[in-house]
């Protein structure tokens, strides 16, 4: 107790004393109020009805407006703001992996069935983002989605560790990357569990020296495919997915089985390539969802056209809060990627989930090497605060042969 008293700040102690006094006052006040209403001027009455009438007459003299408290007013404002389709709002994150804490401001609006969104962000690592989108999310009775977007990113210190599964942590260098994307996509949703769609986009990338505490990329002796290039693409995309999860933001059952084809067509025939992503997820609830076994298998494969190369900054990468939690963002990069994850999730309460997880993955230059040999392993434990359809807070603590990593983020890992 002595120790506690010493370390507690005076303000905390005063708050505690205030809280205790408030509670005592509350108890005494309530007791007196009840007592007073029960006894107020009753000596003049000789019936119970008259006594009740007297109590009500007494209260009639003390009426106060029934107004929301400050806390309730704040929540009213917050909810109205959150649900307002036409408002300015703040954003956090969603900029680029490795950007760090990235606050931003955005504006959204709704015009009939159309949704407009535009915003900017600036991270503590000097990453910058400007983006705008215009979409029609539920055309033809929610059977069709159409989205258009423009996005400009300037990343200043993206990590690069070399290409391949044997890259070394200490070889890290940083690079800068400017990316511009403008395009549109359409998604057919004939059934709630099935999606089929495609899109076209113009993309331009320009890499440069990196900043930050690590050496810049031009100093590395490692092979860096496409270093200091300016790549311009016409990207075409086609995808199909069976998605029977309860919600993308939170689910205890169902699964996602998706395949995405991308063709990055470089008009200069230097950096053109194709990429296929296969993402398979399955949630298996056990004993009335007391536990959920969650599995994911992710494969990304690139295939460069003749004599063309896949720039290092567009190589599939392993590491980070959604792509192998035992390693940092972009820790492993190569033309092909395999990631398998398993989670044992349990539900301590309706709004808190926990998970023990294992991530294992590898990157390879050759597709035939995508097997379960030489996988990079990581494991850990996580806590997730969630609602019925969203997971606003996720804290995952992971360990790998490169030590411990803590991921404080939102959304499920898969």
């Amino acid at each position, binding site marked *: 107790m002595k120790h506690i008293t010493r370390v507690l700040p005076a303000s905390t102690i005063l708050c505690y004393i205030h809280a205790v006094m*408030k*509670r005592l*006052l*509350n*108890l*005494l*006040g*309530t*007791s*007196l*109020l*009840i*007592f*007073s*209403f029960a*006894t*107020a*001027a*009753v*000596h003049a*009455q000789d*019936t*119970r*009805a*008259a006594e*009740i*009438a007297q*109590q*009500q*007459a*007494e*209260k*009639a003299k003390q*009426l106060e*407006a*029934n*107004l929301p408290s400050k*806390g*309730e007013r704040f*929540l009213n404002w917050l*909810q*109205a703001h959150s*649900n*307002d*389709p036409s408002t300015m709002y703040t954003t956090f994150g969603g900029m680029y992996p490795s950007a760090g804490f990235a606050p931003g401001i955005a504006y959204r609006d709704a015009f009939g069935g159309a949704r407009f969104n535009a915003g900017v962000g600036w991270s503590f690592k000097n990453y910058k983002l400007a983006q705008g989108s215009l979409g029609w999310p*539920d055309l033809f*009775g*929610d059977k069709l989605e159409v989205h258009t977007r423009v996005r400009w990113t300037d990343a200043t210190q993206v990590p690069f560790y070399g290409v391949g599964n044997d890259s070394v942590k200490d070889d890290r260098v940083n690079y800068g990357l400017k990316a511009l994307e403008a395009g549109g996509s359409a998604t057919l949703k004939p059934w709630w569990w099935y999606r089929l769609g495609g899109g076209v986009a113009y993309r331009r990338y320009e890499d440069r020296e990196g900043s930050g505490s690590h050496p810049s990329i031009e100093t590395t002796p490692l092979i860096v495919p496409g270093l200091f290039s300016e790549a311009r693409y016409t990207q075409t995309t086609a995808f199909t997915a069976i998605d029977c999860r309860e919600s993308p933001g939170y689910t205890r059952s169902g699964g996602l089985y998706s395949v995405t084809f991308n063709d990055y067509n470089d008009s200069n025939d230097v950096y053109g390539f194709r990429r296929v992503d296969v993402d398979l997820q399955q949630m298996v609830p056990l*004993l*009335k*969802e*007391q*536990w959920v076994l969650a599995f994911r298998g992710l494969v990304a494969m690139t295939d460069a056209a003749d004599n063309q190369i896949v720039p290092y900054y567009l190589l599939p990468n392993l590491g980070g809060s959604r792509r192998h939690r035992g390693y940092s963002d972009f820790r492993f990069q190569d033309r092909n990627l395999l990631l398998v994850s398993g989670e044992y999730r*349990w539900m*301590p*309460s*309706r*709004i808190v989930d*926990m998970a*023990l997880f294992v991530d294992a993955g590898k990157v390879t230059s050759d597709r035939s090497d995508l097997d379960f040999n030489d996988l990079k392993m990581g494991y850990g434990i996580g806590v997730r605060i969630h609602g019925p359809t969203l997971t606003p807070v996720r804290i995952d603590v992971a360990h790998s042969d490169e030590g411990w990593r803590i991921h404080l983020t939102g959304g499920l890992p898969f």
Partner: protein
Amino acid sequence: MKKLFCAALAVASLTFAASAQKPRFYSDDPISASPSTQDASRVGAKEVNLAYDAGLNLFMDPGDPNMNRRAMSINTVDEVPDSMWFTNRILGGQRMSVEDVAKGPDTSAGPAAGKWTIASGKSNGVTPGFTILDANEVRWFIKFDPPDYREMMSGAEATVTKLFHALGYNVPENHVTRLTRDMLVLTERSKVTAPDGSERRLKDVDIDRLLRMAAKDADGSYRVIASRAVEGKPIGPFMYANTRPDDPNDTIPHEHRRELRALRVFSAWTNHVDTKAINSLDTLVQREGRTVVRHYLIDFGSTLGSASVHPREYDEGHEYIVDPGRTLKRMATFGLWIPSWHFIDYPDIPAAGRFTADGFNPVEWLPRIPNPAFIRARPDDTFWGARRVMAFTDEMIRAAVKTGKYTDPAAEKHIADTLIARRDAIGRAWLTNVNPVVDPVLDGGTLKFQNAAIAAGAAKGPTSYEIAWFTFDNATGATSPIGQPSRADGEQANAPEGLPSSAGSFIRVDIKAVNAPQPSWTVPVRAFFKRTGSGWTLVGFERLPDAPAPTGTK
């Protein structure tokens, strides 16, 4: 709070001396109705923020810190008089028939046939719906069943409405009925309120979107629950703690209203886990030439096995949505500590949702969010509630369930059987944990009473009671024994010699069980009789005295 304290202190100081002179019983005791004497026309409308209400009850413990205060809305014979909150029905002066229970609050057969004009889209709650004016211009709120669980929400709403009406609450008139898309008419006045509170004109596409969220039958029609707008001008929900500061007739803290404390019993019975403020409604109505506030319970879509848009979650009824102790236990054990509710099986009857009597322990039943009135319910409150639940016959329950219009006979039977089994569990739990002596009558020289627990088959024995007689001074509260306590075999005893004979005199009779199966039965109930003419009239009854205890926690 300071203002409240000072006001209370001043009033209490001024009246303390006078209070010593207050008689225990007035000439009109026990009252059968509690009047609302003040004009409440200046009461303002106020909505309650759902998140605020939940947070307040989960983390702040609102209401009187004294967790053991006797209910304050009761009359001198331990009963709740009729009021703008409650009307004695199932145990009222005129006992209800099976038909009365099935009829409930209904004054019509539902929305009038013909075109229904949509007044507005539904902007709150989780269930899709809208407000209509029927062919007779009567306003109704329409809600739909979820597609995968047809009849679940609407059946629960209709059934539980009937039960809660019979229990004594003000409830809306709810009907299971049908609509087709072509019945719905939009006008220029049809509005929808956006989440941010702004209004815009309702369009056909909005209606179509709502209907896509609803269960559609093969013939293209929709089964709906139609809830008639209640009498009066809505002014928002009531809170389950404290009083409405602008309502002069609202003098009793809500957490000390027995009808709200005992709602815990009724909610456990019907699995009404959603007893939060926004599922209540106050309205301004005219009574005896003045405006007063009438208090309703509304929205029974999350009852029985229904959680409105999906079946009840497995933990509902067993845990609060935030339960730090159990949460930490499960966190620390990697989820290997498994509560017993995980092992409860539910029959595969979609219209019934998840509703069963297996594993039902009324005492351990919990709503989603702590309810200040439930937390303060004492054994005399839950006993009062249990008597009302036990007053429902099997036939009454089956008649109420029938109004849910379940097309699956298995669903109707399962829900009725479950309600019957849960009723009996409530009797066993709450009729037995306090001295269950009821209805004392002193007729001539014979005292007669009942044992509610034994009469309901909820307990066995005892067969003997100890009865002590006292004179009672109504002005001072002083008592004096009349002879020695006597022993009675069965629920009847002879009065001793020497009872006062003058009109207006009072006696007190203490009755406790001997060799009772429950220790609580040995705590005597106190009955107070007043000499009126040649007979004795019960004017007071006290099952448990007001025994303010140190502050507790939920």
